[in-house]
């Protein structure tokens, strides 16, 4: 079964054969039942006609006999009733009708037999001779039906069949009273032997198993295939003796239909064989008898069955003949398919040289092969093409990534950029949407007291944008170094870029110069998003005149704006990648969210501000693809020449880190920078490095239970006595001075894990103090010189 399901070949062959067989069988069955109906109708016509002709033939015989007897009776009334007349009359009767077996004249019991010379005379046929006799027991004859019925009924009568004892023959008798006035003087009879009727009925063409039947007026069986029933049983008596209820019902219904109608047909189940049979019958009105034929249905339907068997055999032969072509057709369809499926397998393994079945056919299979072949060719060329383009793409991608590296490399990336200006806190990032972005930022110290910074966004993306950005950035920087004025610089650069700007690219730019002595900020805006000014309490956009972006229009006017940066205030520059960041629900991050973020959680440091905002924007996008470059630049300046803190002196240097180990290299860079600036020995530097690293790793690893960004501040003072460091964080309270001394004498495997780091810090320092102030751990570390 599973094989048939899997194999198209078998299914096709089965379908063709099964369909053909079903059609043939349906035709055979239809033919059979139609034939059956027709033949039953034909046979009914034939046998009822046969029965009625047999009945008619017998009726004619009866009538001829009646005529002879009636004439004799009429004659006997006129003739003298003597023995001689009677004998000649009897002989005449027998001679007139050769069917008559015997004939009698009986004087009525009260008539004078002396005068007539006889009482009952009988003549009968014996071979060719006619014999006569005087009946020996007239008293008995008078008691028999043939005499008493006409005598008492005073009319002609056909008796029921009886066996005459004298001649031992089954016969029926027609008897007529000879009436003179109201008196019956004699009875004249003629006998018909039933043997002739039985013989003629049995001689009828009824087929091999068909049998005639003769039933008397009162249902007695005169002739029947079951000879033991003849003259003995009626249908009622048979029903009475029937052992089965069904047989009884059959017999009674036969009896009813025989007595109920003159002619007809009747289907019934035979008593012994239990086979279906038909009874066709007609009646003989003169005697009230029924002639019937019992024909087994099997015999009637035998030709139909024979024909059915023959048709079936022919059908089977036909189906067998259909077998090879069916298999052939199925094969011609499935063989190329099988070959194709093999070829497809090989193709899937990359073998394009596989040979296909011959495609010289024009049918569906041929078209399939041709299509398959085309597909193979196309596939082959497509894969070749694909290989080429992939190689090209890879090349481009690698070039792009190089371009990206170059672009990023021209941006200042060292933070803190000016460690000597310990009050200046500046941090910036650029994350590209594609490999090469169009955003830019820049900053530099124009002299000791002036910080130049700018942010920009080139229209478009990709390599052209990045090139344009490189040009813009370079121009801006070189120009402002010369002009020392933002508005003039923008004006100048705008005109420079506008020339030959055939690609119609432009750059929005915000640039400014911060005077580190006065905290005065001079800035100009070329169509860029206004930066945000914020401190611990508020955040707002910076006012700026609206000017077109650079390279959009030559000779566009730009105006400087001035602002004294409040103490503790920070300035955040950004590109539209921030405000136009989109989440999957197609909502923009927007300026409101930006302001809200800065108001709710004002970051302490520039780096904290940039990294937390980046994180917030990424969180908002919920994984949606970044559509534009995101560039952030945060700036704050605190003049440490005028200490604001309660600390006795402002620190020599300040470093603010976020709570991540990736920040540690910045700490190292910071120390190295201090080493050069302050002329530390190598040993001091590496010692401080180890101490700070040990402590910071400890803080980053254990102090913060959440995954927010936290700032860790490191302040450093130096005087003749030595170096003092103050490290503060807002993590969980932890007092390193309260820690127990580890048991250094115990074996390595017995010591608890940890604890050694703190031990190392304590032994490496000259003094270690701890305080918890304003929710922060403040650890003071003192290392004396020498």
């Amino acid at each position: 079964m599973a094989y048939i399901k899997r194999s198209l070949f078998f299914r096709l062959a089965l379908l063709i054969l099964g369909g053909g067989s079903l059609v043939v069988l349906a035709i055979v069955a239809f033919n059979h039942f139609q034939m059956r109906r027709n033949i039953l109708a034909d046979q009914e016509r034939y046998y009822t006609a046969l029965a009625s002709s047999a009945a008619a033939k017998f009726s004619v015989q009866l009538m001829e006999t009646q005529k002879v007897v009636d004439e004799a009776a009429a004659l006997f009334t006129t003739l003298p009733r003597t023995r001689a007349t009677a004998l000649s009359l009897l002989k005449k009767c027998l001679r007139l009708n050769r069917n008559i077996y015997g004939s009698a004249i009986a004087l009525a019991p009260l008539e004078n037999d002396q005068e007539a010379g006889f009482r009952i005379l009988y003549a009968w046929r014996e071979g060719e001779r006619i014999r006569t006799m005087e009946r020996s027991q007239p008293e008995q004859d008078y008691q028999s039906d043939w005499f008493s019925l006409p005598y008492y009924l005073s009319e002609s009568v056909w008796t029921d069949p009886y066996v005459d004892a004298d001649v031992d023959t089954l016969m029926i008798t027609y008897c007529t009273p000879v009436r003179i006035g109201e008196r019956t003087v004699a009875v004249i009879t003629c006998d018909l032997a039933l043997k002739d009727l039985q013989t003629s009925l049995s001689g009828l063409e009824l087929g091999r198993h068909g049998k005639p039947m003769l039933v008397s007026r009162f249902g007695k069986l005169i002739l029947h295939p079951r000879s033991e029933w003849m003259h003995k049983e009626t249908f009622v008596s048979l029903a009475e003796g029937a052992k089965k209820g069904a047989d009884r019902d059959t017999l009674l219904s036969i009896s009813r239909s025989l007595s109920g109608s003159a002619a007809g047909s009747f289907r019934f189940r035979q008593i012994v064989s239990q086979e279906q049979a038909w009874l066709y019958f007609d009646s003989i009105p003169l005697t009230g008898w029924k002639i019937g034929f019992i024909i087994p249905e099997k015999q009637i339907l035998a030709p139909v069955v024979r024909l059915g068997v023959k048709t079936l055999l022919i059908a089977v032969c036909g189906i067998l003949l259909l077998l090879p072509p069916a298999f052939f057709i199925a094969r011609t369809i499935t063989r190329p398919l099988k070959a194709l499926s093999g070829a497809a397998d090989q193709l899937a393994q990359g073998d394009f040289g596989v040979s296909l079945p011959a495609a010289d056919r024009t049918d569906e299979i041929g078209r399939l092969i041709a299509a398959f072949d085309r597909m193979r060719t196309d596939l082959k060329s497509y894969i070749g093409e694909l290989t080429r383009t992939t190689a090209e793409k890879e090349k481009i991608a690698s070039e792009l990534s190089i371009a990206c590296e170059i672009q990023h490399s021209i941006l200042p990336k060292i933070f803190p950029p000016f460690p000597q200006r310990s009050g200046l806190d500046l941090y910036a990032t650029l994350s590209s949407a594609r490999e090469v972005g169009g955003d830019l930022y820049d900053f530099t110290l124009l002299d000791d007291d002036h910080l130049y910074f700018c942010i920009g966004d080139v229209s478009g993306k990709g390599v052209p944008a990045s090139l344009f950005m490189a040009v813009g950035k370079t121009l801006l920087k070189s120009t402002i170094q010369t002009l020392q004025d933002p508005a003039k610089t923008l004006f100048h650069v705008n005109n420079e870029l506008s020339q030959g700007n055939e690609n119609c690219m432009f750059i929005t730019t915000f640039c400014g110069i911060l005077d580190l002595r006065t905290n005065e900020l001079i800035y100009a805006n070329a169509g860029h998003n206004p930066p945000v000014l914020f401190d611990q309490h508020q955040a707002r956009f910076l006012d700026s005149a609206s000017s077109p972006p650079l390279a959009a229009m030559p000779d566009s006017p730009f105006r400087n704006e001035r602002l004294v940066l409040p103490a503790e205030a920070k300035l955040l520059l950004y590109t539209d990648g921030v405000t136009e960041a989109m989440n999957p629900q197609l909502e923009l991050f927007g300026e409101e969210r930006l302001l809200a973020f800065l108001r709710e959680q004002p970051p302490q440091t520039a780096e904290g501000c940039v990294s937390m905002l980046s994180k917030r924007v990424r969180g908002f996008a919920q994984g949606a693809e970044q559509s534009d470059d995101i560039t952030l630049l945060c700036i704050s300046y605190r003049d440490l020449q005028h200490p604001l803190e309660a600390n006795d002196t402002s620190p020599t240097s300040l470093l603010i880190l976020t709570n991540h180990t990736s920040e540690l290299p910045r700490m190292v860079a910071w120390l190295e920078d201090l080493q050069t600036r302050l002329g530390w020995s190598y040993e001091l530097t590496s010692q401080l490095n180890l101490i700070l690293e040990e402590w910071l790793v400890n803080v980053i690893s254990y102090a913060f239970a959440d995954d927010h960004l936290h700032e860790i501040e490191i302040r450093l003072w130096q005087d003749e006595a030595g170096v003092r460091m103050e490290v503060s964080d807002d993590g969980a309270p932890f007092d390193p001075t309260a820690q127990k001394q580890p048991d250094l004498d115990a074996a390595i495997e017995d010591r608890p894990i940890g604890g050694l780091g703190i031990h190392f810090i304590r032994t490496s320092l000259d003094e270690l103090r701890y305080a918890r102030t304003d929710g922060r751990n403040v650890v003071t570390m003192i290392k004396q010189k020498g």
Partner: protein
Amino acid sequence: MKRIRVSVIISMLLAAMALAAVQVSAAEPVRLVLQWEHQSQFAGYYMALEKGFYRQENLDLAILPGGAHVDPVETVRNGRAEFCTTMLAPVLSSYDRRRDNELVLLQQILNRSNLTLVAWKKGRHGSEPIASPGDLNYKWITLWERFRPPYQAFFKKFDITPIILPQYYTFSLFLRRGADACCAMRYNEYHSLKQYGLRDEELTVFDFHDLGIDLPEDGLFALKKTWLSRPQTCAAFVRATMKGWQYARDHREETLNVVMRYVDGSRLSINRPHMAWMLDVILESIFPARESDWVTGQLTEERYNRAVSILGLGSAAPAYNDFVTVGAQRGLH
């Protein structure tokens, strides 16, 4: 010598005794003549013979079939048979106490009357309904000559004057509507009519038993001379016969098989269902239902006198004790 003589005498004596024993064991030949052709009506006799009950009584019985041309009473009177079975009525009606070869009743076999008169419910022309005995007045009725007395009693009882036609072996005249009514034995002709397809709705049946003309029917008769001279033989014959009837009652199918053998052997065109019906009715008439005023085989004086009076015989009838033997007076008690 003396010893030899004694032994001779003893051996001669023994031989004589053996001879006598042979003579005693030789069965006594007797003949029974039936009142009609073989049928279930005589099943008891067939079974007693079949089962060897007569042989056990040391009787060698020959059954002579009756028929239309056989008068059983005459057969016995003429000495052509020792026993006969026939109806009580014709024996009593033809009784002549002056004759020296009159019969005695050995046993009353059938105590219930089975005589009926069957009429077309709507008359022979279909226009004159017959529902009660009175409707038979001036109607055409075919009668058996042999059983005329009970029918006469019936006519007399209901004060009917019908037109009588003879009824012979067949009832063709009635069937062909040549008569309004015909005689029919409940166990025989009545059932034959039904086998000819006649239905109860078409017929009115006057059952004499129900109408109070309850004549005892078949009896077992012998010459008074025989009874007086061979009382043991008569008693043995009755005993074996009644045993046969009892056997027939208890083994109906077997009995039917035997009956059909007799029937077919005489080339009588009688079917088995008909014989089955007849056997049932006959047995009902021999072995009474629980609450009957008679016992099997018995003819009480009261029933005898009632029969005499139904037949209107008066003093012509023999005295009960003269006619009914002790065996029949007692029955099978």
